[in-house]
């Protein structure tokens, strides 16, 4: 069994994002970047499956500028075998990303593709489902538990009503929830070792896929600011204000 994991470089989840004054986007200069959090869960799960002896190889792929390699390097440091970096300097919509990943899947022929359920920058929640559709594969989305059986994977999905269990034939795409596992930290020796692991670099235009964007971003603006209100000094005052001032209880 071979597992492909897709990882994305995003603004670190702890950073308070600031909108650019000219409305063209958000500030990214000198801003701390990191792997999209649920992508870390995807890497962890793939590595765990390999450690259990059920997978032979785990390959991590990212699409992005030169520095996006850092996300692959981080995956290599926690047990991924090798990496692929598809280089591009422009923003690619999930549809284009899925088309690129499909090319990588056709080349690598994995039995499973793991990725985070959503990237915390554009919050689209699309790429995994789109990739599965393009490949004609089943999809397990928002997954918090994985069980590999013979030629089948059972996943527990986090849905609005609670939890749902679905079994899928392999090959399949799984998009991971933050609750799937606890991603490990890389040890210093493993970080050193990861520097020797190979990362193949591909150029997006060499892949021959249509990645033209279909959506124009006209403007990015700050949401209406919510002002903090008052501090109340007691529970009695709170209840009184809710009843008589806000009139919500």
């Amino acid at each position, binding site marked *: 069994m071979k597992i492909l994991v897709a990882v994305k470089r995003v603004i670190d989840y702890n950073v308070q994002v600031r909108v650019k004054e000219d409305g063209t986007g958000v500030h990214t200069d000198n801003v701390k970047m990191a792997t999209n959090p649920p992508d870390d869960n995807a890497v962890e799960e793939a590595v765990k499956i390999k450690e259990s002896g059920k997978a032979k190889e785990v390959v991590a792929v990212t699409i992005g500028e030169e520095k996006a390699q850092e996300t692959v390097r981080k995956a290599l440091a926690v047990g991924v075998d090798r990496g692929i970096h598809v280089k591009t300097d422009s923003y690619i919509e999930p549809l284009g990303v899925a088309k690129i990943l499909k090319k990588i899947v056709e080349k690598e022929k994995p039995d499973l593709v793991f990725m985070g359920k959503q990237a915390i920058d554009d919050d689209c929640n699309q790429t995994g489902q789109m990739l599965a559709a393009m490949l004609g594969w089943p999809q397990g989305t*928002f997954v918090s538990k994985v069980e590999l059986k013979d030629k089948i994977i059972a996943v527990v999905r*986090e849905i609005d009503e609670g939890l749902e269990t679905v079994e899928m034939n392999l090959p399949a795409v799984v998009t991971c929830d933050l609750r799937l596992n606890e991603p490990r930290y890389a040890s210093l020796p493993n970080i050193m070792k990861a520097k020797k692991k190979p990362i193949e670099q591909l150029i997006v235009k060499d892949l021959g896929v249509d990645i033209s964007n279909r959506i124009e971003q006209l403007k990015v603006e700050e949401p209406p600011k919510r002002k903090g209100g008052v501090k109340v000094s007691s529970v009695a005052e709170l209840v009184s204000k809710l009843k008589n001032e*806000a009139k919500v209880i």
Partner: protein
Amino acid sequence: MSVLLIAEHDNSNLKVFTLNAISAASKIDADIHVLVAGNKCENVAKEVASVPAVKKVLHSDSPNYENYLAENLTPLIVKLAESYTYIISSANTFGKNFMPRVAALLDTSQISDIIKINSADTFIRPIYAGNAFATVKSNDKKKCVTIRPTSFDPAPTSGGSSSIEKVEPIDIPNVSKFIKREETKTERPELGTARVVISGGRGLQSGENFKLINAIADKLNAAVGASRAAVDAGYISNDHQVGQTGKVVVPDLYIAVGISGAIQHLAGMKESKVIVAINKDGEAPIFSIADYGLEADLFEALPQFLEELNKLNTIQK
């Protein structure tokens, strides 16, 4: 024929977020057809037919559609989509699951989770956990759009009588199998639509302590929410999570208890009309957006809160 809207239901009843999606869709185009695909779901088809904003109901019945597996629904939607300009659904775990699959096969770039419609092709959607709003224009001929349900009022449900057209189910790929669904049963209002929500965070320290939250929820007829930290710690099940990757709620009153107010949590509740924060850390970020902040130990404040509520002659339900 313009809008194909995909209804969410449990084969007996329509789920309310479909009505929010219908009302959003009616701001884009008045010609709305709703697909009700399920197993023995004719009652749902009838329910949808009575929604005045709906022009026609497409009813497709098959055991393969019973559990709305994305793999099984997608071929039907893609086939029907030939005659429509818009394919629309709600941006909850139902719509998020299948819509990108449909969009990919139609080779169209999906617009996820819109909160406002500027024109037939231009929409506003939150990005970066709602810390920025992007105005986006779709240049695709066919547009796949998911609607943030809490940003649109539900469409009125009675008085309509649109026709119901039977649609033949089509072959499914047979690559996935539904095993089971574990739904959390509750007598309380649904989190996504409740008038009042009271949420607990890591400050609760245990699942057992949620009884303090539950007691107030019962008193206020509120839904119970939670921060991701509380869900991750196992205090409460995942369907209670409010935030960027959980549910988005917009109640009249949101009470955050023992929640510090991480960006990811605020993304799910900061549009609430009135926000109350109870936290013993006076510097907690939640206070910066709360209308009423109470700096107090929740283990003392919550029993007092209940006591004060008990003193009131009337409480809005």
